[in-house]
């Protein structure tokens, strides 16, 4: 599906079609889950149950959608696991975070496919996802029957993990769509420009293009 493939011309391939499909399944299920979950979480968001067809449908579908998300998220996690191991240069890169936030990217340490922010987000999501699955199953009365005290703890864990995931999602979406221009096409078209790749992920760029400059 993907790999260090050098395009004959044009842009740098970042995500193969399969990866993109997986991502968007996760993204869609996540949005559905977040919205319906928020509806259960706080009365202010109750009207969001509409996205899954009302309160009862939300209650019925939410866990199934969650399982779907978990499966596809799991595929992604396995696939990108190695790419998300934090390396020494990531630390150096992280020290420049204020500059980065100020869009002052000059002289940043060279990094691979993902920066440390992405890696930390990945880690947070993986942890959250596991917690959500476990606590979600505990709370899922259609399939499981746990003691009430366990369900109570699970409910809190589920809520916290979900909030962590949503916060990460906000960062992720903002960065990908609004902040770092040129990122979005990696998940829509599958490619990024050479400039984008060289600028943001030079190590990766050299790896996939065979070191060309």
């Amino acid at each position: 599906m993907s790999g260090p493939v050098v395009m004959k011309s044009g842009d740098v391939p970042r995500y193969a079609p399969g990866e993109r499909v997986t991502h968007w399944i996760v993204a869609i299920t996540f949005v559905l889950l977040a919205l319906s979950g928020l509806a259960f979480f706080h009365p202010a968001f109750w009207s969001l149950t509409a996205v899954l067809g009302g309160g009862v449908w939300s209650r019925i579908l939410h866990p199934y959608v969650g399982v779907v998300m978990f499966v596809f998220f799991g595929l992604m996690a396995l696939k990108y696991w190695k790419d998300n191991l934090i390396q020494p240069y990531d630390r150096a890169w992280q020290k420049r975070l204020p500059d980065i936030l100020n869009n002052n990217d000059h002289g940043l340490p060279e990094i691979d496919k993902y920066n440390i922010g992405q890696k930390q987000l990945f880690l947070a999501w993986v942890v959250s996802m596991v917690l959500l699955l476990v606590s979600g199953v505990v709370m899922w009365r259609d399939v499981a029957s746990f003691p009430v005290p366990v369900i109570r703890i699970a409910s809190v864990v589920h809520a916290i993990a979900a909030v962590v995931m949503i916060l990460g999602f906000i960062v992720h979406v903002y960065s990908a769509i609004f902040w770092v221009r040129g990122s979005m096409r990696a998940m829509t078209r599958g490619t990024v420009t050479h400039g984008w790749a060289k600028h943001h992920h030079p190590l990766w760029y050299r790896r996939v293009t065979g070191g060309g400059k």
Partner: protein
Amino acid sequence: MALQSLNVTKRSATTTQPPSVRTAEEPVAKLIDVSKCIGCKACQVACMQWNDLRDEVGTNVGVYDNPSNLTDQSWTVMRFAEYSKPDGDMEWLIRKDGCMHCEDPGCLKACPSPGAIVKYANGIVDFISDNCIGCGYCVAGCPFDVPRISKKDSKAYKCTLCSDRVAVGLEPACVKTCPTGAIQYGAKTDMVLRAEKRVGDLKERGFQKAALYNPAGVGGTHVMYVLQHGDDPERYSGLPSNPSISPWVSVWKGAAKPLASLAIGLAMLGAFFHYVTRGPKDEHAEGESK
């Protein structure tokens, strides 16, 4: 829909004022005098008949408790506890279990569905099944392990304190049927007075620790017990000594709600203002890097 004729003081998943113009409603209570209860289960049958419930015909599992637990079809059950006293004699403590109608109901606090659980001004905590989504949060919220989710329709059910009867001036069906007067119903203040009288009688009969069970941890209840052993409610088939809404539920449905909402809101605002103040990282053209 909640009963039109009753004021609503609390409504699940609702942050605005529920209907509450009726000012003359008085808090009510059901008083269960364990020292007068013979465990005849007439209340269970009355409950089944008034509420049109028919639980499954079970089996005998070695005790008199049948059905052996609360279910969506059994909103009240008698729990029989055999207690051996230090002197070798025994006591057979029979407690009618069911919804306690807490002043501070954990189920209502946990419920995510607006109006699925209401608390009337008279103190009755009622499930409005129409609005119930079947999530079971009320089960987790209840300090007494009372609500049950139906396998048939996935709605939560429990004793309504016969809110439909009470709303038209009748007593609950179990009260109506109780042959020994062990279950009484009336204004809560009257019930507390009556309970004090009963406690006095029990003390005269040698139950020095007799007491009214009206636990403060949930703000008091609208179903109260007169216990011979008020110092040890656990003896009565595990009646909680000091029930309160679980801290987990309090966090989940308390602090977590505003904090999480705030965090999410701040994150979104932060992103927005970052964009407004810093703008995007421009797309870099070919060869433009560094």
